[in-house]
């Protein structure tokens, strides 16, 4: 079996609103230059391109096709797209490399959430017959899940606020973060509810942004990167979209993806948890102990570019391997309502 590694990662600053188009081109051009330039590559060195984005978020048809302008796709390139977080595009590219079809791939995700009303746009991912017509908003649904966990004794509003406090403090060292700072739990708990039992700090902010990762196989990875983040486990699983049938206080798909990918013994985990209680839930589902450093970047509570944030979790985790500060790390991404779909990527550095 071929070995594949994350060799490069770049992301835009996470900001509340950008002035570019919803095609993402203005956000993507600089990070393509950054990631390719950092590796000494040009577009012609990339064997496969794959992206994640959503036309519902962009408010225009085939926005992912317009985004290809950012690549400069001439002569023609091999390219694909998923209408999911780009972490799933990374999975597609990883399979392509494992098959030996190409030696390098560039994966990117982008989202300009500020163009629309994100809480309503997210209703588009729900069952179109019996759920979407009610226009449930993403915060309201997450609030139901949070309360079920509180009433089951799995977390409480204090432990949820602690997650936000830790995320924002960690984000002080992340110059690309949207939200950062030193806060106290009591200070955060003094705020009003936005979707009782959720307060603003429990919810990831609305963010415009993009991220990109370069994958390479075998010797090509060793040429490009002093310390590649070798992918040792990469799995995704899904639960029923009918969330009324699920036990919302856990996530069987996260448990299964973590087990299959080998989530044990990691030093750092970047978790895609858009709500504070979901970080606690995911730590339990993935069996991450207190010794695991969770979301040293601040995570998505510090900046949540839709369709890029999951990919950025894997990139942030890989970065700890690249810089030598960790040797076994985990990146997680989620998609669908209430942690319905989960993806786990475990990476290792080698001497």
């Amino acid at each position, binding site marked *: 079996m071929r070995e594949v590694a994350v060799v490069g990662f770049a992301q835009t600053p996470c900001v509340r609103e950008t*002035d*570019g*188009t*919803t*095609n993402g*081109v*203005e956000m993507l*051009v600089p990070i*393509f230059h950054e990631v390719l330039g950092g590796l000494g590559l040009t*577009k012609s060195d990339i064997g496969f391109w794959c992206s994640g984005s959503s036309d*519902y978020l962009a*408010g*225009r048809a085939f926005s992912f096709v317009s985004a290809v*302008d*950012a*690549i*400069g*796709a*001439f002569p023609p390139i091999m390219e694909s797209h998923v209408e999911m977080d780009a972490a799933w595009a990374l999975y597609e590219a990883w399979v392509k490399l494992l098959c030996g079809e190409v030696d390098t791939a560039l994966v990117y995700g982008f989202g300009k959430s*500020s*163009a*629309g*009303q994100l*809480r*309503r*746009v997210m209703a*588009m991912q729900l*069952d*179109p*017959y*019996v*759920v*979407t*017509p*009610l*226009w*449930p*908003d993403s915060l*309201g*649904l*997450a*609030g*139901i*899940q949070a*309360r*079920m966990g509180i*009433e089951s004794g799995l977390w409480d509003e204090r432990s949820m606020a602690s997650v936000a406090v830790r995320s924002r403090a960690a984000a002080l060292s992340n110059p690309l973060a949207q939200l950062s700072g030193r806060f106290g739990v009591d200070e955060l708990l003094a705020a009003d*509810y*936005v*979707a*009782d*039992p*959720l307060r603003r700090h429990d919810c990831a902010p609305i963010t415009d942004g993009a991220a990109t990762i370069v994958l390479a196989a075998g010797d090509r990875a060793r040429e490009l990167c002093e310390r590649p983040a070798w992918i040792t486990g990469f799995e995704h699983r899904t*639960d*029923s979209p*009918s*969330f*009324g*049938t699920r036990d*919302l206080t856990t996530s069987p798909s996260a448990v299964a993806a973590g087990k299959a990918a080998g989530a044990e013994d990691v030093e750092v985990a970047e978790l895609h948890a858009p709500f504070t209680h979901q970080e606690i839930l995911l730590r339990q589902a993935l069996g991450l102990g207190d010794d695991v450093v969770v979301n040293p970047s601040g995570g998505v509570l510090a900046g949540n570019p839709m369709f890029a944030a999951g990919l950025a979790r894997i990139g942030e985790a890989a970065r700890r391997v690249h810089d030598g500060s960790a040797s076994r790390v985990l990146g997680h991404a989620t998609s669908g309502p209430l942690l319905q779909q989960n993806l786990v990527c475990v990476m290792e550095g080698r001497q």
Partner: protein
Amino acid sequence: MGFDYTRSTGPTLGRFLSDLRRRRVTGIRGSDGRVHVPPLEYDPVTAQRLSEFVDVAATGAVRGWSWIPEPLEGQPLARPFAWALIQLDGADTSLLHAVDAGSPDRMATGTRVRARWRGERVGAITDIECFEISDEPADPPAEADDVTMVTTPVHLRYTHSASPTEDPFLRGLMEGRLIAQRCPVCEKVYFPPRPACPTDGVPTTDRVELGDRGTVTTFCVVNVPFLGQRIPPPYVSAYVLLDGADIPFLHLLLGVAPADVRMGMRVEAVWKPREEWGPSMQNIDHFRPSGEPDAPFDSYSRHL
């Protein structure tokens, strides 16, 4: 932006939605014996096709809830309400709906609720207006025809910002000027401009002003009426390559019989009256033949 999604229901959801119209709620028995409401077509664990419908009550208990102090467009209630997962009596799983509780103080897990049926029912989840806190039974069933289709209107609002390359283009249009961008690498001229050159992947930074004459590179005669059509057919949609541009754009060609339009035909813009101008390509009402001799094929063959 809006679209009315029209979907066929199939036998399982069709039964559920038809019954809602009759003020009845129907679930389905899963492989493990649990009764699912709304009914599932396939079991969420075994993936077996499910077929045993089970009547359940329009009353039940709240299993989880959140409170929405500021409802959004399209939601069941315009005043503050609770989203709740409601386990109806006779069901084992929960249905999402709104509860008109008035205050979060009246909501708790276990709270008894009943469906508030809409007067005009069409066979949709919104036939239940919302749930209300009550120990009493809901209104009794009524006769109604089956439904096999559902229409879900989706309306979303977007604010599209003009990008740095679109900005001079749109401002130019307001003054009756046509501003294109040139790629600094391949020197191709794009009109309308694009944020990045699709060949080189670099921002198109150089501005170029173009005239309003060009060449028809290709065209089609529209004979088919369609939703939203603004001109009665037949009419000609033509790709116009402005002199000095490298990419043609689609516009309307009038002032010539469809049978006389040809590739290479020289055309000129006909502008709307100045007082109607805005930041839009519609400032050009249409193109018409300029009377010049046709352009030779070689002059536009690379721009088809």
